[in-house]
């Protein structure tokens, strides 16, 4: 065999401009999936403050003074957290819409329109996210 030259990673990174819709969809889906599973772990961690709270006694719970309620309320009081939640919504909505697109693809539905359905998922994600901002931010100030 003759020698040959491998353009390796440089090429991989240099190529992103030339990605097709399907590739972007794949990247976004991956990214959003990872964010979601990451969030699931944090989410459960935060929620588990409910365990000590449950042991702390009826009174505290009734007054809303338990660790759980306190943690959540203080977290939800932070604008940053609220904004992150909007982000989370965007991520989840995209993952859901594109996931639906992928499920249809798996069934062999709409393959010809795969790029259009990807753009539609993006636009819809944007729209739903913007529309939910008031609800998400409500009471944060």
């Amino acid at each position, binding site marked *: 065999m003759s020698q040959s030259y491998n353009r390796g990673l440089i090429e991989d990174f240099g190529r992103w401009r030339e990605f097709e819709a399907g590739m972007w969809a794949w990247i976004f889906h991956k990214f959003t*999936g990872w964010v979601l599973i990451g969030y699931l772990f944090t989410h459960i961690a935060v*929620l588990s403050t409910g365990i000590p709270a449950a*042991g702390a006694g009826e009174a505290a719970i009734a007054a809303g003074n338990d660790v759980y309620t306190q943690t959540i*309320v203080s977290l939800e009081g932070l604008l940053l957290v609220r904004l992150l939640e909007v982000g989370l919504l965007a991520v989840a909505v995209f993952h859901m819409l594109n996931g639906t697109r992928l499920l249809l693809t798996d069934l062999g539905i709409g393959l010809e329109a795969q790029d259009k359905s990807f753009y539609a998922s993006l636009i819809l994600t944007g729209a739903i996210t913007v529309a939910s901002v008031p609800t998400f931010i409500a*009471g944060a100030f």
Partner: protein
Amino acid sequence: MAERYSSFQSGGRMWFLQRVTAVFLLVVLAFHFFLLHFVHHADEVSFLASSARMEQLSYYSLMILFLVTATFHGVNGVYNALVNQGLTGTKRTVIKWTLVAASVVLIAQGIRTANAWAGIGLY
């Protein structure tokens, strides 16, 4: 030749489960978001409210199922992504079991929390 890939191992089952869980999640996640952000607002969360919901058996079991499917779906997704990027050999085995362990912890912790709310003694 085909024998080259002797480590015969069908990925079909996991692939299929990933899709089935996705369909389930699609419905439940939408419900979850809707309930906790639109019906009840973020600033109204309290232990009492959570616990009131959890005491209903249907809600409790739905949430446990939600947790299990989401964990499976998410962790299996991560694992697949890594394998697609060329994760092989011992590294792969190690990561696989680490992910399994993390899932078990996550699910256990989740169930304990739910139990705490539902007033089930086991937590």
